[in-house]
C-alpha cells in the first residue's frame, strides 16, 4: 500500500514538474521575443526568489544581484523561482561565491543551528590539532560547503553535514605518550555493536540457542520442532535474546560472549582512564548515570550498554580529542587546557582517543540494560527522528528545542544535558592546573546556551551557571523545506508521538484532573506552602470552619469580635466572636468554629482573649494588655522593651503562630516557673533519680529560660539563614540546656563501668540494652522529660533542646568510651543517630583529629521491613500489607497465608516489632556498610512480597486484579 502510494505521489510530482517546465520555459521565451521590457531590478528579483525559497535571505540576495547583473528577464526569474531544485542550487552557488570564503559561507548558512554554532566555536578555539587548526579549516569548510550545495538542506540542521565532513580530520590531536596513559581505561560500548560486530562464534551460538528456545516456547513447540517448522529467529529476536542473557546469565560480565580478536571500534574511539565498575542500582538510573559521565546521548544505546574495563597491552596509539573528533556528538565539550593529558567529557570524566584496541584487552564488560520501557521509548524516539529529521538524532533535536516525544526517559536526558551544560558553562577545574584557556566552552546561541530561543529541552542546570529559563513548550519537528510542498508524509504530525508528557514522578499529581494549586508567594517559609483546599460551602451564611452549634448564651459571653477574612482568608464574609472561655463562634449563622480558626481569632482579638497568650498574640499584644515581656524580645531587654503596636489584623499567613502552642510570658519568680506546664512531671522525674526538688527547679529554670530564648531567636532570625545557623550552633543557644545536663550528670553521673551505645529506629534501644549497653533512654538525662508536656511546641525550638541533650550525652559517652569502639544499633537508616548523635561524636573526633571507631549493628526482622509508614516506602510494612490485602480481595487471612508461604511476616508485626525478633545482621565498621546490609535485606523482603502478590493475583484471577472492576 505504502509503496503504491509513494509511486503515485512520485508520478504526480513528475507530472507537476513537466507541466511547470512546459508552461514556464516557452512562455518566457515568447515574452522575451514579443515584448522586450526592462529586466527587473535586484530587489524585484530578490522578492521573487525569496517567495520561492523563504528563509535563505543571504542566498537569494546574492543570486538576485547576480541575475540583475546578467540582466535576466522577469520571465527567466519566474521560471527559476518555479523550479525549486534549480533555485536551491543557484542560490547556494551565488551565496557561496559572494561569501568569498567557504568558512564565512558555512558560518552564515548554519547560523540558525545552535549545534553548528557551538561547533564553529570549538573549531576556532582548537589548540591540539597536529600541525595547527588553521591549515585544515579551509579544507573542512570547503567540504561542508560542497555538501550544502549538493542537495537541499535545512539551515538549522547543518550539523550532520559537519559531522560527515569532519571524517578525514579525526584522530589528529596531540599524541599522548604511552607512559602518560593510565594502565586501565574504560569505555561505554553499545549492546547493538556487540551483537553486530563482536560476538564470538560461541557467543553467537549461545544467543542463537536462546533465541530459538524463546521462539519455540512462544509457539508451544520444542526447539527442534520449531526449526523443522521453519521458525528461526531473525536478528531482532537474537538481539532480544542477547539482552535477556545480559540481564541474567551474563549480568556480571559479558566479555565471554565476545570474540577476543574483534576490534572495539572500526577506527579510533573514546576511552576514559580509571578502573570502574557499574553500581548495582536501578537499571534505568544506572544507565542514566553512565550516559551522564560520558556525556552520551541515551538514544545511541537504545539496546543497552556495556561498561568495559580495558587493560591494553603493547604499543598504544592514543591522542587528545580535537574539535573534529568532537563532531561525533552534539554534547562534546571542548577543553583547552594544555597541562592536561586528556580531554574532559561533558560529564566531567577525562577522555582520550585510542586505536587498535581489541576485546582481548577487555578485563570486564558489565551490562547496563535499562528497563524495557526505556528501551522501547528510545527505539520509538529514534524512529520518529529518523522519519522526520533524517540525519539528526534525538539528542540533537532536544538540544534544538524540538521534542520528538520524550516521556519515560526524560530523567536521563535531563541528567545528561544538565551535566554537560554545566561543564560547558562553568568548566570544572583541577587544583594545581591552569583553568581552561578561553574559559567556558559555551558559544552564545549555541548548544549549551540555555538563554537562547528556543531553549534546549530537558536542560535546566541547577548549579553553577545561571539558571536556565523554563523549557520552551514542546514544538513539533519542523518540516524539511527541501521536501516537496505536497510531500508531508514524513512530518511529525504523521510520525512523531504526542508532545512531552508531564515530568516523571509528578505524574500522579499532575495526572489528577485538577491542576495543583499555584505555589503561594510568601516571605514566610511555611506560610508560603499552603492554601487550604477551598470547598464551596453549601450555605454562604455558614462559616466553612463551623463544627457545631453555638452555645445558647454565646452573645452574652462575647468579649471580642474579628472579621473572619482577617484571620482565615479562606473564610471571608463572617465575623468570629471570641467568648469568655476562649471558644469562638462564627456568624451570620452562629456556629462554633474549629480549633484552627478559634486559635487564629483569639490571637487577633483586639482585647486579650481569655486563653493564655499565644506566640502570635505575644507578637501583637493588645493595647490594653498588661505590659508583660514578650517572648519575641531578647530576654535581657524584654522587660524594658515596650510591646510593639498591635497589628491591625495579624493574618495567619504571616503570623509566626505556633499553633496550638500557648506560651505565657516568661516567668520571673520561682512560683511562675513552677506554674509553667510540665513542671510537676519534670520535678517528679528528677526526684525519682534520688535528687532534691531544688535540683529539679534549677534544671527546670535553666531549660525554660533557654527555650524562651530560643523561641525568641527563632521568631526573629528565621528569615536570615546565616544568622540562624550561627545562632543554633552557638553557645547562647545551648548553654542553658548544657548547664542543666551537666548539673544532672554531676549529681547523677554516668556509670563509667558500663558501656554505652547509640541507636536508631525503635526498638533498637531496647535491643542495645539486651546486649549489655546503656542508651540515652536508660539513663537519667534521657528520662528528664518523660511525660513532660512543656508549653513550647515549635519543632525547631524543641530540636535545640534535644540536640543539646543528645550532644551532652554523646560527648560524655565519647569520653567514657575513649579508646573503645562505640556500638550503634540500627533498625533503620538515618534517624537520631545520623541527625543528632553522630554529629556530636564527629565534632568530638574532628576536634581531636582522631577518627572515631564505630561498630554498626544492622538490626533486621526476618520477613519484615524496617519501616512501617507511607513515607518509608517502598520498604514499609504498612503499605505492603494494604497492597497484599487488596491483592487478596480484602481477605487478610489469605494475604497472610500467601506471605508466609514465601517467608514474609508483615502481618505478624502491625506495631513496634518485639525486641526478641530483632536479628543482628552482622557487625560492620561503617554506616555505609550497615546501610548496604539493611538495603539488601529490604530488597529481599520486597522481592518476596512481590512474589506473594503475584501468587494472590494469579490465584484470584483477573477479577481480583487491582484496577479492574469486579
Amino acid at each position, binding site marked *: 500500500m505504502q509503496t503504491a502510494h509513494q509511486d503515485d505521489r512520485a508520478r504526480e510530482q513528475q507530472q507537476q514538474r513537466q507541466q511547470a517546465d512546459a508552461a514556464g520555459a516557452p512562455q518566457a521565451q515568447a515574452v522575451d521575443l514579443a515584448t522586450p521590457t526592462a529586466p527587473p531590478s535586484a530587489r524585484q528579483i530578490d522578492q521573487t526568489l525569496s517567495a520561492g525559497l523563504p528563509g535563505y535571505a543571504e542566498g537569494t540576495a546574492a543570486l538576485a544581484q547576480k541575475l540583475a547583473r546578467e540582466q535576466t528577464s522577469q520571465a527567466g526569474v519566474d521560471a527559476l523561482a518555479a523550479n525549486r531544485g534549480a533555485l536551491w542550487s543557484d542560490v547556494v552557488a551565488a551565496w557561496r561565491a559572494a561569501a568569498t570564503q567557504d568558512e564565512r559561507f558555512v558560518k552564515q548558512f548554519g547560523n540558525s543551528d545552535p549545534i553548528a554554532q557551538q561547533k564553529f566555536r570549538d573549531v576556532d578555539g582548537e589548540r591540539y590539532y597536529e600541525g595547527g587548526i588553521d591549515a585544515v579549516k579551509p579544507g573542512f569548510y570547503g567540504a561542508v560547503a560542497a555538501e550544502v550545495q549538493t542537495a537541499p538542506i535545512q539551515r538549522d540542521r547543518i550539523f550532520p553535514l559537519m559531522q560527515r565532513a569532519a571524517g578525514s580530520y579525526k584522530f589528529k590531536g596531540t599524541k599522548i605518550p604511552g607512559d602518560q596513559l593510565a594502565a*586501565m581505561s574504560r569505555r561505554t560500548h553499545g549492546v547493538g555493536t556487540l551483537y553486530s560486530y563482536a560476538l564470538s562464534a560461541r557467543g553467537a551460538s549461545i544467543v542463537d540457542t536462546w533465541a530459538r528456545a524463546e521462539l519455540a516456547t512462544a509457539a508451544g513447540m520444542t526447539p527442534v520442532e520449531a526449526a523443522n517448522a521453519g521458525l528461526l529467529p531473525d536478528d531482532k529476536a537474537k538481539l532480544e535474546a542477547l539482552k535477556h542473557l545480559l540481564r541474567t546469565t551474563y549480568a556480571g560480565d559479558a566479555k565471554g560472549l565476545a570474540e577476543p580478536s574483534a576490534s572495539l571500534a572500526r577506527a579510533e574511539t573514546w576511552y576514559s582512564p580509571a578502573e570502574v565498575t557499574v553500581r548495582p542500582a536501578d537499571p534505568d538510573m544506572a544507565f542514566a548515570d553512565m550516559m551522564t559521565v560520558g556525556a552520551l546521548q541515551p538514544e545511541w544505546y537504545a539496546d543497552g550498554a556495556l561498561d568495559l574495563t580495558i587493560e591494553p597491552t603493547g604499543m598504544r596509539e592514543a591522542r587528545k580529542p580535537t574539535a573534529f573528533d568532537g563532531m561525533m556528538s552534539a554534547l562534546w565539550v571542548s577543553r583547552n587546557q594544555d597541562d592536561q593529558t586528556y580531554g574532559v567529557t561533558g560529564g566531567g570524566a577525562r577522555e582520550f582517543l585510542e586505536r587498535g584496541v581489541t576485546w582481548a584487552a577487555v578485563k570486564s564488560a558489565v551490562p547496563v540494560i535499562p528497563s524495557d520501557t526505556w528501551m522501547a521509548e528510545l527505539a520509538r524516539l529514534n524512529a520518529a527522528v529518523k522519519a522526520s529529521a533524517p540525519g539528526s538524532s534525538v539528542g540533537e533535536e532536544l538540544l534544538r528545542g524540538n521534542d520528538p516525544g520524550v516521556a519515560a526517559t526524560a530523567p536521563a536526558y535531563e541528567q545528561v544535558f544538565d551535566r554537560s551544560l554545566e561543564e560547558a558553562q562553568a568548566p570544572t577545574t583541577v587544583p594545581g592546573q591552569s583553568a581552561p584557556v578561553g574559559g567556558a566552552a559555551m558559544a552564545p546561541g549555541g548548544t549549551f546556551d540555555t538563554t537562547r530561543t528556543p531553549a534546549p529541552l530537558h536542560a535546566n542546570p541547577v548549579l553553577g551557571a545561571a539558571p536556565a529559563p523554563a523549557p520552551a513548550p514542546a514544538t513539533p519537528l519542523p518540516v524539511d523545506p527541501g521536501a516537496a510542498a505536497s510531500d508531508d508524509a514524513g512530518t511529525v504530525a504523521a510520525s512523531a508521538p504526542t508532545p512531552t508528557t508531564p515530568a516523571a514522578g509528578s505524574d500522579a499529581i499532575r495526572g489528577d484532573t485538577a491542576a495543583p494549586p499555584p505555589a503561594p508567594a510568601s516571605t514566610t517559609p511555611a506560610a508560603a506552602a499552603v492554601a487550604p483546599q477551598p470547598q464551596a460551602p453549601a450555605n454562604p451564611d455558614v462559616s466553612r470552619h463551623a463544627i457545631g452549634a453555638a452555645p445558647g448564651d454565646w452573645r452574652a459571653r462575647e468579649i471580642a469580635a474579628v472579621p473572619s477574612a482577617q484571620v482565615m482568608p479562606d473564610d471571608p464574609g463572617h465575623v468570629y466572636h471570641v467568648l469568655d472561655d476562649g471558644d469562638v463562634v462564627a456568624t451570620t449563622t452562629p456556629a462554633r468554629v474549629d480549633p484552627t480558626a478559634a486559635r487564629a481569632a483569639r490571637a487577633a482579638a483586639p482585647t486579650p482573649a481569655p486563653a493564655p497568650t499565644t506566640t502570635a498574640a505575644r507578637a501583637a499584644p493588645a493595647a490594653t494588655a498588661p505590659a508583660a515581656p514578650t517572648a519575641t524580645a531578647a530576654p535581657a531587654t524584654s522587660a524594658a522593651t515596650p510591646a510593639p503596636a498591635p497589628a491591625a489584623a495579624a493574618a495567619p499567613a504571616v503570623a509566626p503562630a505556633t499553633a496550638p502552642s500557648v506560651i505565657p510570658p516568661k516567668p520571673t519568680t520561682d512560683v511562675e516557673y513552677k506554674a509553667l506546664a510540665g513542671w510537676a512531671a519534670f520535678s517528679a522525674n528528677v526526684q525519682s533519680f534520688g535528687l532534691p526538688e531544688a535540683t529539679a527547679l534549677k534544671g527546670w529554670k535553666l531549660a525554660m529560660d533557654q527555650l524562651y530564648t530560643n523561641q525568641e531567636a527563632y521568631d526573629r532570625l528565621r528569615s536570615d539563614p546565616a544568622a540562624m545557623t550561627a545562632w543554633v550552633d552557638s553557645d547562647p543557644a545551648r548553654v542553658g540546656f548544657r548547664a542543666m545536663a551537666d548539673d544532672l550528670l554531676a549529681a547523677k553521673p554516668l556509670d563509667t563501668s558500663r558501656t554505652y551505645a547509640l541507636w536508631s529506629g525503635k526498638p533498637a534501644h531496647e535491643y542495645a540494652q539486651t546486649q549489655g549497653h546503656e542508651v540515652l533512654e536508660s539513663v537519667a538525662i534521657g528520662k528528664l522529660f518523660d511525660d513532660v508536656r512543656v508549653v513550647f511546641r515549635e519543632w525547631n525550638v524543641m530540636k535545640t533542646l534535644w540536640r543539646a541533650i543528645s550532644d551532652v550525652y554523646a560527648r560524655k559517652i565519647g569520653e567514657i568510651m575513649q579508646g573503645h569502639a562505640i556500638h550503634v544499633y540500627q533498625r533503620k537508616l538515618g534517624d537520631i543517630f545520623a541527625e543528632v548523635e553522630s554529629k556530636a561524636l564527629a565534632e568530638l573526633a574532628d576536634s581531636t583529629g582522631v577518627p572515631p571507631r564505630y561498630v554498626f549493628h544492622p538490626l533486621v526482622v526476618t520477613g519484615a521491613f524496617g519501616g512501617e509508614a507511607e513515607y518509608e516506602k517502598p520498604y514499609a510494612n504498612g503499605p505492603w500489607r494494604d497492597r497484599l490485602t487488596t491483592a487478596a480481595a480484602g481477605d487478610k487471612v489469605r494475604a497472610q497465608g500467601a506471605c508466609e508461604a514465601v517467608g514474609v511476616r508483615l502481618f505478624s508485626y502491625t506495631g513496634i516489632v518485639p525486641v526478641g525478633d530483632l536479628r543482628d545482621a552482622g557487625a560492620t565498621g561503617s554506616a555505609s556498610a550497615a546501610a548496604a546490609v539493611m538495603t539488601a535485606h529490604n530488597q529481599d523482603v520486597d522481592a518476596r512480597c512481590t512474589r506473594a502478590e503475584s501468587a494472590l493475583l494469579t490465584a484470584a484471577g483477573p477479577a481480583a486484579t487491582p484496577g479492574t472492576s469486579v
Partner: protein
Amino acid sequence: MPDQALRAALEALDAPIQAPSDLLQLDLKPIAVLDAGHKATLVAEIAARLGAGRDDPRLVDALVEIGSKAAWQQIEALAAAAEPSVSSARAARRLGVLRRDRRAVRWLAAALRSWTYVVEEAATGLYELDNYRADEALLEALAGRDEVEIRRVLLDRLFVRHGLDAWQLAASPVWSARMAALSPWPSLRAEAIAVIGRWVRGARGGATPQALGVAVPDVPPSAAMTALLKALRDPNATLDAGQLAILQGGERDWAVDLLGKALERGEFRAVAALHAVGGARAQMVLDDARALDLPVMATANA
C-alpha cells in the same frame, strides 16, 4: 464536634516532644485509620498549621500518610515555597523519593543555602535521591559554605553515600581530606574539597575504592606519630621536631592536619612544628594562617 477518630488524629498532630525520637515522626497510626472524609478535614487542619507558620517536617509525613490528592498538593506547594524551611525541604525530599519528582533536586539544592536544620534535612534528601545531580549539589554547597557545622553535615552525607566513611582511618587519605575540608585554611580546604569531588564523581561512575586510591590498610600509628598525638593532648608538651621530620606518607598529612588544629586553637608551638614537618601542605597551612592574620602568626613572626 469532631468524632473520636479525628480527635485522636488532631491530638497526634500537636503532641508534645518529649524525647529525641519524638522529633522524627508523629504518631501516624490515628491518621492511617481515618476515613476519607476525616482525612480531608485533617489535610485542612495541617494546612492551617503550616499556613500559620508552623515549621514542622512531621506534618509533611502526616500528609504523606494521608496520601490523598489534596494532601500531595499541599506537599507540592510546600516544596515550592519561596523561602526554604525544614518542612519545605522535607516536602521536596518526599516528592523526590516517593514520587520521583525531578524538581526535588533543585529545591533541595536551594535549601542547602539555608540554615543548619534546613541543610540537614535537604542534605538527607539529596543523600536519598542518590544521583549525580544530588552529589553535585552537595559538593557545591560543601565548597560554598563557610560554616563548619554545615560542611560536616554535607561531608557526612557524601561520605556515607559513597562508602568513603569506611575509609576514615587514621593517616588515611579520606580522613586527611575530611580534616582539611573542615579546617579554616582556605587553600587546604579547597584542595581537599576538589579531591573529595573527584572521589565522589569517580564513585558515582562506579570506581572502586582501590581505583579511587582511598583504600588503605588500617595500621596503628608509628612511634613518632604516637608521640605527636600524646604531645598534642598536653598543651605544655614540647613537639619534637626531629620526630616530626621523620613522619612519612599519610602520617605526614595527618600531622599537618593535627598541627593545623593546634594552630587554630592558637598554639604557638604548632608554627615551628609545621615548619619541622615541612612540605607543601604544611606550607599551605602556614600561608593561610598568615593570610588570615591569626594572632599566633604575629607572635611567630615577632
